[in-house]
């Protein structure tokens, strides 16, 4: 057990022990969500700011509810309705929020490294809720939590990430977390979206979708990130569906105990057939439930102060 960090910026810099600490802590917070009283006073009197410079619904709501269940006060800040539109810099916006005595700033931004930038001058804790195509640490933590919960372990599992890896911060954070915890990771998709450079991270890269899914214990599907693609990366959506979509024919090739995961939002009929998204092997909605527990754990852990770690009984 070790967590001495003030911020949660990425998975790349976490140790396996720190990742396990978040997952273990999240397990206790998941139990809180199953009680009649779903709230604990851990962050009583703290102020949490959701600074979302890039649109998001599920992640923002998940963080908002997580903060509320920890009894923190929450401010939601979206780019459309803010002074960023009037020319204020991110640094000034963040400093203004801190001047309101914010204790934790949760930031989503289209620019890689924006959370790291804030963490260098803010005294508040910074939590990365997605920065460009770089990282989305709480998504990787909730994905590994879900795998561990369903499979009982992570080490030794075969995980296939299928789809738009190049533009996916979910993929990058997942790759770091899974490799650190001892899983084997295969990336699959159109070669333009799954470049071989990912092999340097320690993944296997293939364009053969049948082969990639046949041996997988977990298939994590990614949405095509149209908003980040500066040019057309494959001929047509129809071609993508026929070559890489998880349809019923391909699903028959998978292991009988495979887990189907998706960070959402899902595009039914594109990366996944509607029936497969709703089948018994799909854990897509478990991911949403677990996301809340993982975000409660993350907010709780970054709120620790400095001093003796163990609460000694005496």
């Amino acid at each position, binding site marked *: 057990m070790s967590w001495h960090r003030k911020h949660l910026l990425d998975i790349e810099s976490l140790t396996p022990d720190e990742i396990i600490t978040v997952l273990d802590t999240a397990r206790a917070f998941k139990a809180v969500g199953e009680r009649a*009283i779903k709230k604990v006073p851990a962050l009583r009197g703290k102020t949490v700011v959701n600074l979302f410079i890039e649109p998001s619904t599920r992640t923002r709501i998940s963080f908002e509810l997580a903060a509320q269940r920890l009894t923190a006060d929450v401010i939601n800040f979206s780019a459309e309705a803010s002074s960023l539109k009037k020319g204020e810099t991110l640094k000034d916006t963040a400093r203004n929020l801190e001047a309101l005595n914010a204790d934790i700033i949760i930031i989503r931004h289209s620019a890689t490294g924006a959370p790291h930038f804030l963490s260098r001058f803010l005294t508040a804790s910074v939590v990365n809720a997605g920065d460009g195509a770089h990282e989305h640490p709480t998504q990787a933590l909730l994905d590994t939590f879900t795998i561990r919960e369903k499979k009982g372990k992570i080490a030794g599992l075969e995980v296939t990430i299928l789809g738009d890896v190049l533009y996916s911060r979910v993929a990058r954070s997942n790759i770091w977390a899974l490799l650190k915890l001892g899983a084997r990771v295969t990336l699959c998709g159109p070669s333009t979206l799954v470049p071989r450079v990912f092999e340097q991270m320690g993944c296997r890269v293939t364009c053969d979708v049948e082969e990639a899914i046949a041996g997988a214990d977990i298939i994590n599907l990614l949405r095509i990130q149209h908003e980040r693609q500066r040019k057309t990366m494959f001929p047509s959506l129809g071609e993508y569906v026929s070559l890489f979509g998880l349809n019923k024919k391909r699903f028959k090739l998978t292991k009988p105990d495979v887990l189907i995961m998706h960070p959402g939002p899902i595009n039914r009929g594109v990366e996944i057939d509607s029936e497969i998204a709703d089948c018994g092997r799909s854990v897509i909605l478990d991911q949403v439930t677990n996301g809340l527990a993982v975000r409660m754990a993350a907010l709780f852990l970054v709120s620790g102060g*400095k001093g003796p770690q163990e609460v000694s009984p005496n």
Partner: protein
Amino acid sequence: MPESTLVLNATAVQRALTRIAHEIAERNDAGSEVAVVGIQSGGVILSERLGRLLAGIWGHAVPTGVLDVAMHRDDLDQRFTPKVYPTNVPFDVTGKTVVLVDDVLFRGRTVRAAMDALNDLGRPKRIQLAVLIDRGHRELPIKADFVGKNVPTALNENIQVQLDESKGEDSVRLEKP
């Protein structure tokens, strides 16, 4: 090396627990619904043993559970984040007499947090407190109902409770710096 004195040996720990069990049985009528809840992590083994002793006295099973209080502490920002252990109270506490169990009673902050955590699970009819050692120095108006042994201590001293069967014989030691 810190100087260490034996406060209770294995026999004395067992005797203290047996006496506490009989005091709990005496205080609470046979008919009343008593449950035993250990505070993570020092109270867990004690609560299991007390549960078994009470079951022997009353002749029926006594519900036992474990409670983690990390989420209810008042000092989160004054120390590194504490480890969060699972809470597992597999029965409804509402209407029951819940005996909270911990190994050492010191400042009373853990017990305050435990009462809040317990109230989130339901509304017990009453809460009682059983501890193996009361070392004094309370910072809150909290008093144990059942005490194994009162041990006067200085603030810089430490009480080491060893109850894990896998690690050797039961013992309670007082460590001076």
